[in-house]
């Protein structure tokens, strides 16, 4: 069963951070990620993978994600997604 969520956001637009915004999606539509990043060509796939892995690890299957990256490392992406999830389900 997919987790019920409401719109949420976490993170900032400061250097080395990422702003994650989550919005509910229709059941069965999956995880959809819109990513803005200055390093999208080098690290875009990796950032999307961290976002997807973190969402799935927390039981989220259907969601819209807007991510505005400012050079965040993997740990920061994961932390911001975790916080956004926490805020979305609380």
């Amino acid at each position: 069963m997919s987790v019920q969520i409401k719109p949420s956001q976490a993170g900032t637009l400061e250097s080395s951070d990422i702003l994650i915004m989550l919005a509910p999606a229709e059941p069965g539509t999956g995880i959809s990620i819109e990513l803005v990043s200055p390093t999208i060509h080098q690290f875009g796939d990796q950032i999307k993978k961290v976002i997807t892995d973190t969402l799935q690890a927390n039981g989220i299957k259907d969601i819209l994600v807007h991510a505005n990256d400012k050079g965040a490392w993997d740990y920061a992406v994961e932390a911001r997604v975790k916080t956004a999830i926490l805020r979305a389900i609380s």
Partner: protein
Amino acid sequence: MKKDKLRRAMMFVPGNNPNMLQNSGIYGADSLIFDLEDTVSIPEKDSAPYLVAGVIKHVKFPCEVGVRINHLSTPWGRTDLETVLPSKPDFIRLPKAESAEEIKMIDEIISEVEYKCGFEPGSIELMAAIESPKGLRNAYEIATASPRMMGIAIGGEDFSTSLKTGKSLSGRELFVARSMVVFAAREADVFALDSVFSDIRDEETFTQEVIQAKEMGFDGKSCVNPKQVEIIYKIFTPSQKEIDHAHRVLEAYNEALEKKHGVISMNGKMIDAPMIIRAERVLANATAAGVYKREE
């Protein structure tokens, strides 16, 4: 207390800023304290523990890394611990400590996580900040409440506020409290750390405060800016003059031992036991700071 360990500068780093967190190792502080308390705004209290846990787990730092949690009486203290402990910080710093019971509660939580995560029992240390008259009255009990306790610090801003005054440039309102924290730390054989000085532009007053801290017996000082680390090191690292003097004292002592002289003197001045202890401490600190190498 570990004799080969230095904690001259313990630098606070705001816990909700990835840029500051991941780059904080380059400034050479003996210890980093990733802060979840005063530098994290209430709306971000849920976010910072994830960042801090992540950076500890994934970034290699050249020094020990601790976490200042929110007090257990707040809505965030227990979550802070549960989130950051599995990343295995070197120590936890409790703010506003007032009793041994608080330390024992945290000790138990740490023990559970160490067991669950397979960490060596007792490998995560603890320190506490004394920031109120009640905490000061219980400073020795706090410092000895757990074998994990490695240090106590005075939190000057909160302490002076609790006295119904403010933190002055001279710091005279904190003189007794600072002394009592050093007394308790020495009796408990743990580190004694002086308070932060938050005006990073005022290097002159900061320098005076560091000199005073060293003279009073503190092992080091908490700080909030990389610029302050260098000033602390200048004062807390033994100078060449101090090293040379300590060396001569110990040479004179060893020579007298060999010759079985009852009274030891150097340059006409008697050397007694406290001078020898001080000389040994200077050389131990100089060795730990990397400015002196003992002859084999």
